[in-house]
């Protein structure tokens, strides 16, 4: 930048004489002496009024740019409809409103910020000043004074003499925080046994999440993946999210001879098995199902369960197999649950046995 104002020689005679420079001798006598501040160096703007004027214009220009940015922001807000999509390389098809508002607001804010910094760097005084810290502690006279006041106060209050007052005051002050502790009870309802139970119960029909219709065993073919929820649960229900978070079910059908775990086969229906969709590690919905290996993978921490072997954990941090729901077929030919999950679904917790 300095080249614009001619060579250094033109203005160097304006430089004040150097001061504060320390002599080399001091270093030799005492190598640990405080070297003090280095000599102050002047900026071009300090000695060259032309350079200072230029910096002033740059700062003013940045502030003006910020003003234009704000005006453009308001203009874009008025001009662009909210659903207008434009193609901008390399961002692709983006909303004209979002893009222009972001860009103009950035110009408006950066204009102020960059202008202020440039102002401070080039025009404001940059003289180094040392402001020594005062002592951290009070002086002895003040400390003695306060000690005397304290002793006088304690004597006048009779705190040491009237033991009854002292003891009851201790009692009162110790008990008062209990009020706050008791209020913590109102933070929410107790979990009670909610973690142990889901909406599944004996005779509840498995509803296909895609169609909201009961699932029939003949609908579920080998190699397919279906998600189910208990009958009676509606998306409009107040507690839908809490309930589906525990009751979500993953239905797969294996060839009966592929099922290695005897109990898994018994709890299923002709190779159709129903497992909880909630990972037993930290409760992510888990359904990355590989139909040839029968492995199901959790997207969060890569816990892998073998659905052909009682959903045993074969990899990853999960501590329990996925809970299986006992299912059968009711008189209408629909798949039904034979009860709730035998173990709590989802991640482990203290009271889980």
């Amino acid at each position, binding site marked *: 930048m300095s080249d614009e104002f001619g060579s250094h020689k033109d203005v160097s005679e304006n430089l004040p004489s150097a001061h504060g420079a320390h002599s080399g001798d001091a270093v030799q006598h005492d190598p640990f002496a405080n070297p003090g501040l280095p000599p102050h160096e002047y900026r071009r703007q300090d000695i060259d009024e032309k350079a200072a004027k230029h910096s002033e214009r740059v700062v003013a220009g940045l502030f003006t740019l910020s003003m234009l940015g704000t005006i453009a922001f308001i203009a874009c807000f008025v001009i662009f409809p909210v659903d207008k999509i434009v193609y901008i390389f390399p961002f*692709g098809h983006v909303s004209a409103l979002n893009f222009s508002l972001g860009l103009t607001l950035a110009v408006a804010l950066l204009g102020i910020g960059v202008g202020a910094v440039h102002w401070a760097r080039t025009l404001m005084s940059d003289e180094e000043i040392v402001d020594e810290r005062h002592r951290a502690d009070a002086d002895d006279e003040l400390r003695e004074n306060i000690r005397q006041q304290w002793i006088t106060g304690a004597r006048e209050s009779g705190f040491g003499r009237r033991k009854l007052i002292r003891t009851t005051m201790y009692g009162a002050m110790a008990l008062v925080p209990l009020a706050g502790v008791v209020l913590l009870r109102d933070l929410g309802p107790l979990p009670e046994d909610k973690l142990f139970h889901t909406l599944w119960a004996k005779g509840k029909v498995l509803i296909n999440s895609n169609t909201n219709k009961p699932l029939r065993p003949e609908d579920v073919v080998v190699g397919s993946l279906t998600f189910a929820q208990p009958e009676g649960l509606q998306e409009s229900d107040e507690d839908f999210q809490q309930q589906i978070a525990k009751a979500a079910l993953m239905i797969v059908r294996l060839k009966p001879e592929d099922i290695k775990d005897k109990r898994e086969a018994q709890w299923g229906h002709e190779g159709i098995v129903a497992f909880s969709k909630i990972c037993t590690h930290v409760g992510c919905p888990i359904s990355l199902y590989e139909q040839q290996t029968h492995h199901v993978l959790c997207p969060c921490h890569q816990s892998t369960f073998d659905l052909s072997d009682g959903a045993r954990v074969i990899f990853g941090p999960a501590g329990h197999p996925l809970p299986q729901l006992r299912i059968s077929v009711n008189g209408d030919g629909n798949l039904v649950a034979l009860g709730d999950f035998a173990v709590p679904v989802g991640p482990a917790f203290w009271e889980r046995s």
Partner: protein
Amino acid sequence: MKKLSARRRHPLAALVVLLFALVATGGLYAALAPAPKAQADDSAQSLAITQGKKLYSVGCASCHGQSGQGSSDGPSLVGVGSAAVDFQVGTGRMPAQQPGAQIPKKKNIYTQPQIDLLAAYIASLGPGPAAPTKDQYSPAGADAAKGGELFRTNCSQCHNFVGKGGALTDGKFAPSLKGVDPKHVYEAMQTGPQNMPSFPDSTMPQDAKADIIAYLHEVDSANSPNPGGFTLGTIGPVSEGLFAWVFGLGTLIAIAVWMAARTAKAKKS
């Protein structure tokens, strides 16, 4: 009659009786056998099957066996249906170049009529899902919003929330769905290729499949609008976090360095 019974112990009698029996059986069969009428109606179909078998013998039989029964190198094709053939050959996955964790998509070397012949032959081996017609998989008139809901329930766990795909175990992966022919998306749902589970019409009806295709069309085509701006691959927190840490924090550090940097000093030269 007497003459005949007198000769019943003749050494050639048994032979004569056998001859009569054969003539009678043959004659009866010729008279009563079902006429080849039904076959005549299907001659185009049987021609397609014959031609398909020829293509099959050249391109597929080395792994899937001379009659589609499968071998140690490839699964049985009995009952996979024409939809599976149309998907696997149409996307170039079959014939496979080499065995591996997953057979990738590559350039398709068969023409559509050839694929149809192959599909006709495989479909003749056993009943299976048939290749869809255009009105089944066309996204026109389908509900993209409903499709998005279905996609997030059934597909997004592997294919990511706008179909960008993702990694599975042991080198397997869910491919990106960008630019995939709607027909192939439909067939993949129907048949469950490789490790993908299937979503048959019985659990995911045809119009639900069309809704999903409409959703993909909405979010994952070249012209899909993206009101937020830079997608960073639309693969979620990893790329977004990396961008924020490298470029966002990097810019802040650069500004901090600039603010504290030594300004140009005027020095006696």
